[in-house]
């Protein structure tokens, strides 16, 4: 099926997630969509698959006729099926029941007929799925296979895959790619959303690159990697001279740290961080940096290795022990994890202080709040509930909650969604902490921020961790390649 997107806009508040996107995908094409986090890839795909609606004015044209898609059910009716990064299935149910769920009509499904269909489809792509086993028992790759044949069975002629190669084995990846190629030959349209350059280069007939909501370029095979990276991340612009910190004694020392979750495995990381040092963690979301920073906070327990903080062994200790030892963690999800909606700024500052006696001195709390609001330049009153503050002010409030003194500050996306003025302000506050002897580890998807404020950078890709790179001698281009999974072999000493 030919898919044509015309002038697609989508805004959330004042932010444009998609700006005037035009894209033409002929039937039988495998179309790659590249872009960093927040580039607008997911928004565009959600519009096409009916999860959200575009702003008025745009058009979706399938095989020459314009369609209006209000819901995922509409989308599948029109032949568009989306495979989500986390498969939308029902783990406690049998595979065949999952398969049946999306079917409309009929009170009593004909299980036998459906089981035959299932077997035919599975055999066609050489998937070995037992229709009577439970979804919980499947690997991510197998759940993906289930989802693909389910969508095909429901009549999908356009298949959207969102980061499908994350969390699956290389064998499953080879099978997935073979399947997608067969489907394209059958005349199906495949849209492959990814940040992995290698996968896109290997599989896609043509590639569109999004950056900051806009389509910045389209290209066809053969690809020039450096060109793709440049389109994804833009040209390097320097934000002025870097100010490397003075490194002191070792604050945190990690020896052979290994981490695991259902998707990723990080093996044998060794790292010493000195007082006053800033370490930036770069990588696409879900590449392992989140797990790593949480392990530094004591929120994820390593499966191997030791963590020492200023000589004190903290391996396997709880987050609260880490916190008492001077480690503070500011999560990215401010209102979900960082702050307590419903409580005021004053309440937060009082909570973060050591209690003095049994009763709260409300006057002192008010004074403390006024003082912090002033020194952190928060736009809000002491009695303002935190959820009423803007994102930038919530971030400032989180920073104002950091205890003193501190050994290690861990930050997830400390400046995401903030205006440049707030970014500069927040980093000036963080650098003050460094001068007082704290080390900082932070995650950011803004590579310029990473290079600007870090002393050393670790790049994460599918659980692989690079050796620490000297931020002063690394370029956005180099980071971009590593983030996209290129150039790891050249690093030699990189961990597998």
């Amino acid at each position, binding site marked *: 099926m030919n898919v044509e997107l015309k002038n697609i806009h989508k805004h959330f508040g004042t932010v444009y997630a998609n700006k005037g996107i035009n894209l033409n995908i002929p039937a039988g094409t495998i179309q790659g969509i590249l872009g960093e986090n927040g580039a607008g890839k997911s928004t565009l795909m959600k519009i096409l698959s009916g999860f959200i609606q575009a702003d008025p004015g745009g058009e979706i044209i399938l095989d020459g006729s314009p369609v209006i898609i209000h819901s995922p059910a509409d989308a599948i009716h029109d032949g568009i099926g989306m495979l989500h990064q986390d498969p939308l299935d029902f783990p406690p149910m049998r595979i065949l029941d999952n398969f049946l769920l999306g079917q409309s009509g009929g009170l009593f499904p004909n299980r036998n007929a459906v089981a035959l269909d299932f077997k035919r489809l599975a055999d066609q792509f050489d998937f070995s799925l037992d229709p009577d086993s439970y979804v919980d028992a499947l690997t991510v790759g197998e759940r993906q296979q289930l989802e693909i044949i389910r969508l095909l069975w429901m009549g999908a002629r356009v298949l959207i895959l969102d980061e499908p190669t994350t969390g699956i084995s290389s064998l499953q990846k080879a099978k997935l790619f073979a399947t997608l190629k067969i489907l394209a030959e059958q005349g199906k349209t495949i849209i492959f959303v990814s940040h992995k350059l290698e996968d896109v280069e290997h599989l896609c007939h043509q590639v569109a690159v999004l950056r900051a909501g806009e389509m910045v370029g389209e290209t066809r095979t053969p690809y020039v990697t450096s060109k793709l990276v440049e389109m994804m991340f833009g040209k390097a612009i320097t934000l002025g001279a870097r100010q490397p910190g003075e490194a002191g004694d070792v604050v945190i020392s990690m020896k052979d740290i290994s981490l695991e979750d259902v998707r990723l495995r990080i093996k044998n990381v060794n790292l010493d961080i000195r007082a006053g040092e800033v370490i930036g963690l770069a990588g696409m979301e879900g590449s392992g940096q989140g797990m790593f920073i949480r392990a530094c906070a004591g929120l994820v327990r390593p499966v191997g290795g030791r963590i020492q903080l200023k000589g004190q062994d903290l391996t396997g200790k709880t987050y609260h022990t880490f916190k008492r030892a001077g480690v503070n963690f500011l999560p990215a999800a401010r209102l*979900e*994890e960082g*702050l307590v909606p419903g*409580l005021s700024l004053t309440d937060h500052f009082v909570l*973060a202080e050591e209690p003095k006696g*049994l009763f*709260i001195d409300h006057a002192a709390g008010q004074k403390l709040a006024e003082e912090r609001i002033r020194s952190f330049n928060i736009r809000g009153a002491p009695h303002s509930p935190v959820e009423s503050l803007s994102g930038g002010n919530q971030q400032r409030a989180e920073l104002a909650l950091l205890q003193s003194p501190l050994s290690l500050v861990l930050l997830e996306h400390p400046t995401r969604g903030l205006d440049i003025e707030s970014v500069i302000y927040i980093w000036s506050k963080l650098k003050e902490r460094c001068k007082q002897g704290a080390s900082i580890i932070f995650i950011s998807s803004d590579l310029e921020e990473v290079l600007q404020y870090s002393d050393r950078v670790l790049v994460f890709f599918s659980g692989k961790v690079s050796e620490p790179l000297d931020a002063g001698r690394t370029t956005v281009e180099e980071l971009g390649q590593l983030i996209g999974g290129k150039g790891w072999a050249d690093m030699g000493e990189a961990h597998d």
Partner: protein
Amino acid sequence: MIKNRLGNLAYQLVALLLAFGVVSLILISVDASPSEAYKNIFKGSFGEMRKFAEVLVAFVPLLLVTAGLLVTFSSGLWNIGVEGQVVLGAIATTWVYRLLLESGLPPVAIITLAILGGMVGGAIWAALAGILKVFGGVNEIFGGLGLNFVATALTIYLIFGPWKRPGVASMSGTVPFPDEFSLPLWAGLRISPWALVIALAGVVFVYFLLQGTYFGLRLKAVGKNFRAAYLLGIPTWQYSMYSFLICGALAGAAGAVQVAAVYHRLIPSISSGYGYLGLMVAMLINYQALWAVPVALFFAALNIGSIQLPIIMKLDSSLSGVLQGVLVLFVLLAAGVRQKFGRKS
């Protein structure tokens, strides 16, 4: 802030009017006069000193339960098990009485120990719900509901088994203990000033706990955002347990008062549903301790006043329950409408 409060009050007044409106419609549909029914309820509760004393008898356990529930609600827990915690308070109090009646201790000491025993009993029952929740992953609503049934069964077992009256066991309960071992009553009335003191002390305690202490603030943080509270350094599951224990102790005190001041023995329906009624009061006052006293008094008055209805108007006394339920629904509805309305503007 003040404008916000006034707006809130206006919404609740509208809800109150609507609730009375709906109940009036129900009354009209059965050919009864609403105004006469309300008048009878009022006369039945505030008409005479004796009747007002009855209202206070109902008010005491209701206020204690509500005070306890304010604590669990603050920490984000739906302590449905509060009903069973009242029952266990009553059982523990009866048990202490049975142990000490012959001990020769002065009655004051025995009464005090019995009431403290009731508080411990309620707290233990609440701790069970808490352990199920924290360590077993059983939602406190399900755990509490289950424990309520166990508590009722335990009462019946004790009354008909080990604690039965000499001769014949009966639904009228265990052997009443002598008058000098009960909380002293006001002359000629059924209400004990000491029971009132306990109830008011409970609500004042909770008020200061929630408004003024670090403990209360941490409890609220846990209730509003468990995850963020943990990251802020609050030992979250411990605080959940503390709130269960406090609520259980207050509910246990309610059960203890039922035994020590009202029935002087253990009876099968010792809690009379005060636990569930307390849940309604707590929801109605939107978890603000200050409002617990007037609203609990109002609910107690409705309960006692409606006793007159079957006698005078041939209406069922469950009308008070209908009014209470409808009132809670409308207040919650008003809050929902307000939120939606507020978000749009």
